[in-house]
């Protein structure tokens, strides 16, 4: 092979091109529904890219990434709420008001999610295996119940967002513009992930997945490596959550529910674990199934369950594995 492109790279490139082409064509045909569908794919893929860093490369089976997704959503929602009400989130020891500026919201989201992930990760990573799965699930559930018990921000009913977040240039309320924002962030996250995985840090992280004893014996303590990856992973998923809230104009406890954690995991698995573009393929497949199968039957969850079961039992390479062949190890 001299052209230098592997089959997987061709598949990945096609996926990106398709995701870009679909809303452009839809917008040209004046079909706004499909623009929003493509935006959903980009956002959920972004959430999956985040989880993939922890799960696919670091071997940390986090069943609580909805916590970060929802937290991102709530940061966006609460910022918009206070900006709309012109009230303050905090008056003491200093005043923090709301904001409808995307860049501000993203920065705050990243900070808040990073702090929470640091706390959750620091406790959860003391354990491993099935304990880790259950503990991440339990912490996500804790944040879910916390959100429900906050009447100021809608409690069980959630919070509607009346202000569309603003970009310094361009109007993010315009569907196609917002799609480009999400698509751009997805590209950025994929690029950052790719660099990270290939870097020294990535090598250490993958070794932590394969053989933690070996990593420690080489003089690299596994815990900080895993914790760093966990926090980065959470931040990416959190940004996706902020976008998701913006897209829907709504944030509620359902963004934090454990079904959501399961779904984000499904994106990663449907696409193929440990594949850079797995989450994109998985999210696309998921959304397509949901909107088209859901179109002619309301038993869509049954179909999803059956597909997922079949993939886990019989097709472990996921969609990318199917299209691009086996994972090659380097």
């Amino acid at each position, binding site marked *: 092979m001299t052209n230098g492109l592997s089959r997987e790279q061709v598949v990945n490139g096609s996926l990106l091109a398709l995701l870009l082409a679909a809303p452009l064509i839809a917008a040209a045909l004046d079909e706004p529904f499909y623009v929003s569908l493509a935006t959903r794919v980009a956002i959920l893929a972004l959430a999956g890219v985040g989880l993939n860093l922890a799960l696919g490369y670091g071997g940390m089976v986090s069943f609580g990434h909805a916590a970060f997704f929802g937290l991102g959503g709530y940061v966006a929602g609460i910022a918009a709420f206070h900006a709309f009400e012109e009230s303050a989130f905090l008056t003491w020891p200093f005043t923090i008001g709301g904001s409808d500026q995307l860049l501000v919201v993203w920065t705050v989201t990243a900070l808040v999610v990073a702090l929470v992930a640091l706390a959750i990760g620091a406790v959860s990573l003391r354990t491993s295996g*099935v304990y880790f*799965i259950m503990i991440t699930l339990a912490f996500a559930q804790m944040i879910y119940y916390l959100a429900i018990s906050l009447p100021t921000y809608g409690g069980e009913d959630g919070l509607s967002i009346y202000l569309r977040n603003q970009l310094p240039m361009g109007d993010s309320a315009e569907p196609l513009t917002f799609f480009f924002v999400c698509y751009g962030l997805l590209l950025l996250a994929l690029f950052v992930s790719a660099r990270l995985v290939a870097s020294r840090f990535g090598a250490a992280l993958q070794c932590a997945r394969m053989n933690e004893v070996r990593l420690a014996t080489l003089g690299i303590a596994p815990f900080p490596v895993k914790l760093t990856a966990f926090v980065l992973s959470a931040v990416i998923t959190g940004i996706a959550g902020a976008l998701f809230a913006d897209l829907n104009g709504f944030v509620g406890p359902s963004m934090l529910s454990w079904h959501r954690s399961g779904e984000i995991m499904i994106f990663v698995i449907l696409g193929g674990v440990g594949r850079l573009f797995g989450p994109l393929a998985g999210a696309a497949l998921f959304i397509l199934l949901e909107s088209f199968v859901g179109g002619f039957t309301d038993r869509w969850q049954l179909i999803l*369950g059956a597909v*997922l079961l079949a993939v886990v039992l019989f097709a472990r390479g996921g969609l990318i594995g199917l299209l691009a062949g086996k994972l090659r190890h380097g």
Partner: protein
Amino acid sequence: MSLAFLIEQLLNGLQFGVMLFLMAAGLTLVFGVMGLINLAHGSLFMIGAFFCSWIGEVSGSFWVGLGGGLLAAALAGAVIEIVVIRRLYDRDHLDQVLATFALILILSEVTRWIFGDQPLYLDVPPLLAGALPLPGGGGYPIYRLAIIVVGLATAYGLYLLITRTRLGMRIRAGESDREMIGALGVDIRTLYTAIFALGAALAGLAGGMVGVLQSVQVGMGEPVLILAFVVIVIGGIGSVKGALVGSILVGLTDTLGRVFLPRLFALMLPTAEATAVGSALASVTIYLLMAAILVWRPRGLFPVGA
């Protein structure tokens, strides 16, 4: 605050705890013996509740319904084990999580298909209606007391089963040495199906009994499932004793936290804020408890194996 109120709340906590134990026992047995994490355990709880209320209504007897719910859950458990679960024993935890998550989706949808979207309700059986007077006035529902008795009796029964019977011996052997038990000529496949069905029956029993206290609907097993996870993480995954201690601890902490934390904050803050802060904190106490225990003992209170 009266003594009766305190006793009532303690009993509520205990009742919640033993109900969690019935769920956690099955989870922890299945993990301890087969090394499997089963998210679909909550679905078996739901199946028990649905069949209990349906058969109870058709037959006119709560007791027939309860028996039916228990059997339906056990049967569903056995079928699921044979069709899906046994392919997962030598898979990693990620595969187990996803496959059993898929089972939840399937079982919820099938249940909705059979029973419809409307929640079902169950009445307290006449035998257990009424209340037992508490010292200082008031009374405590006999039905809830009965749940406590059934839960504790089940715990004792499990203890006898594991320490005194041949099945229990096999369960213990399975925990320590899977290959040996195979070499002894025990049919390990049947043993695993039996253990899984036993866990399912306990979940079904819990579901059936709880059906009287809350509405029976799709998804009812999930909050309980997650609490049962918290329980076995606290107790030590694989330990039935840990599951019992963990259940009671979680049941009491959660119930008492919800009652007393808002009151505690009312001493320091205005009422509205106290209720808000108190109930927010109460909803997270058990998770904080879990975090504290894990910082202290990462493998739970009664670690298995090590």
